[in-house]
């Protein structure tokens, strides 16, 4: 049961990586990488249940947050050419 979902997520990850490789614009790549983070969170959550030890959820939780931070950081860099400026400018 978990195996089905797990394999589906693995397939999703392969295709997302293909999208990262193909591009064509940088935004396509960032979109694919952001979704990749979601897939990894689901993968780790599923993995905990697959091995009947759902202690791994803390990591999934951490990933859900970190994925967001790095996406926002790269977009801020894209818009302001710097990470230091405040958003109000």
């Amino acid at each position, binding site marked *: 049961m978990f195996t089905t979902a797990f394999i589906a997520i693995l397939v*999703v990850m392969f*295709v997302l990586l293909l999208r990262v490789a193909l591009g064509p614009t940088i*935004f396509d790549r960032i*979109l*694919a990488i952001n979704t990749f983070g979601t897939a990894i*969170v689901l993968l780790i959550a599923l993995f905990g249940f697959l091995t009947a030890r759902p202690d791994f*959820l803390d990591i999934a939780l951490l990933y859900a947050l970190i994925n967001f931070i790095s*996406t926002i950081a790269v977009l801020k860099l894209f818009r302001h050419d710097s990470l230091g400026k405040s958003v109000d400018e």
Partner: protein
Amino acid sequence: MFVVSWILLVLGSVFCLIGTLGLMRLPDFYTRVHAASIIDSLGAILILLGLITQSQDPLVIIKLILILLFMMLTGPTAVHALAHTAVLSEKNRASDQNSEHPQEP
């Protein structure tokens, strides 16, 4: 309960796969965002709900709900920031080409 969880997980996987199919099939970035948001919304929700119905430990359920909550809060913000930046950079490029004085990055 077992059957419910099984259905939720399989449905979630199917939606994730449809989302990736869309990511490959749809013609440009702005339409691909819609496909990616299938994975981020219903794919993730159904798989996490499937896991929630499967677990007995209340701590595990709370953690899964928190993951779901964080995803639902951060996902749209990231997508919006991405799309907004894409629009801005397209506008910048257009104005650069009009003035024929491309700015140094």
